[in-house]
């Protein structure tokens, strides 16, 4: 049987109340496209965007301030600065004239959260069952998954940096859930 005094006297890995351990904030408004199509359409879309669409499951591609996230074998999420919505949409449509595809502007459907800090994986794991260890979910990995009671797109930007994309109507709920979970990290 373990000596209970050991558990009581063991030093805490993280001092309580240290605010820098995790932070949650909104990311600025952005251009978001849902793109679906086969390999030929993905090639054309990649040329229009200036970066190849990732073909490996659950991986993202980034070039400058644009990014493409793999969501499914024929589904991607395109992220770009807010001002590029109209020209970028037109550029992709022009490049894919005659090629079957679906390009939908979902910029205002979703809200982006940035979860930063050393305890960011622990905070997300309060509601997300994925293994967020760096070996299982490396930098650049992205996937749709569940977080508490809503579906989110989770994208790892760094060892301690994540971006969440959540449907706008769930944003309040999600932020509240994460705030409550944050208290438990102590």
């Amino acid at each position, binding site marked *: 049987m373990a000596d209970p005094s050991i558990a009581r006297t063991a030093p805490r890995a993280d001092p309580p109340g240290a605010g820098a351990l995790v932070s949650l904030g909104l990311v600025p408004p952005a251009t978001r496209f849902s793109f679906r199509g086969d390999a030929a359409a993905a090639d054309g879309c990649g040329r229009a965007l200036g970066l190849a669409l990732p073909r490996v*499951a*659950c991986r993202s591609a980034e070039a400058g301030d644009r990014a493409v996230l793999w969501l*499914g*074998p024929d589904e991607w999420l395109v992220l770009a600065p807010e001002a590029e919505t109209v020209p970028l949409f037109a550029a992709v449509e022009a490049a894919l004239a005659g090629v079957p595809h679906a390009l939908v502007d979902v910029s205002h459907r979703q809200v982006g959260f940035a979860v930063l800090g050393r305890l960011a994986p622990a905070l997300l794991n309060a509601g997300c*069952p*994925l293994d967020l260890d760096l070996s299982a979910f490396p930098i650049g990995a992205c*996937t749709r998954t569940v977080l508490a009671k809503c579906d989110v797109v989770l994208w790892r930007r760094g060892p301690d940096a994540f971006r969440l994309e959540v449907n706008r109507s769930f944003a309040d709920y999600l932020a509240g859930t994460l705030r409550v979970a944050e208290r438990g990290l102590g």
Partner: protein
Amino acid sequence: MLLIPCPYCGPRPELEFRNAGHAHIARATAADDQGWAETLFYRDNPKGVIAERWRHFSGCGRFFNALRDTVSDGFLASYRVGEPRPAAPPPIPEGEAPRIGAGEEPRP
């Protein structure tokens, strides 16, 4: 938590999945009552290996097929829609298989 192997995304937690019933149901070709009853309602409900449709709902969104052992609830294989059903692995000898949820626990 049970991990379900998605043929696209790899093993993922079961919360992300939805079951979609039996796989490989051939639709009745003749429009008679018995044929339609077989298509719509008659299911095998085996004790052992079953081929099911699953959807990676909160993931890649894709439907796929999987072999599951209804005795142990273990997933034996998963494969994409359109691929043939793989051969079921040999049954585990009686007495060695996990009996979780089998309803056969010895009564005191």
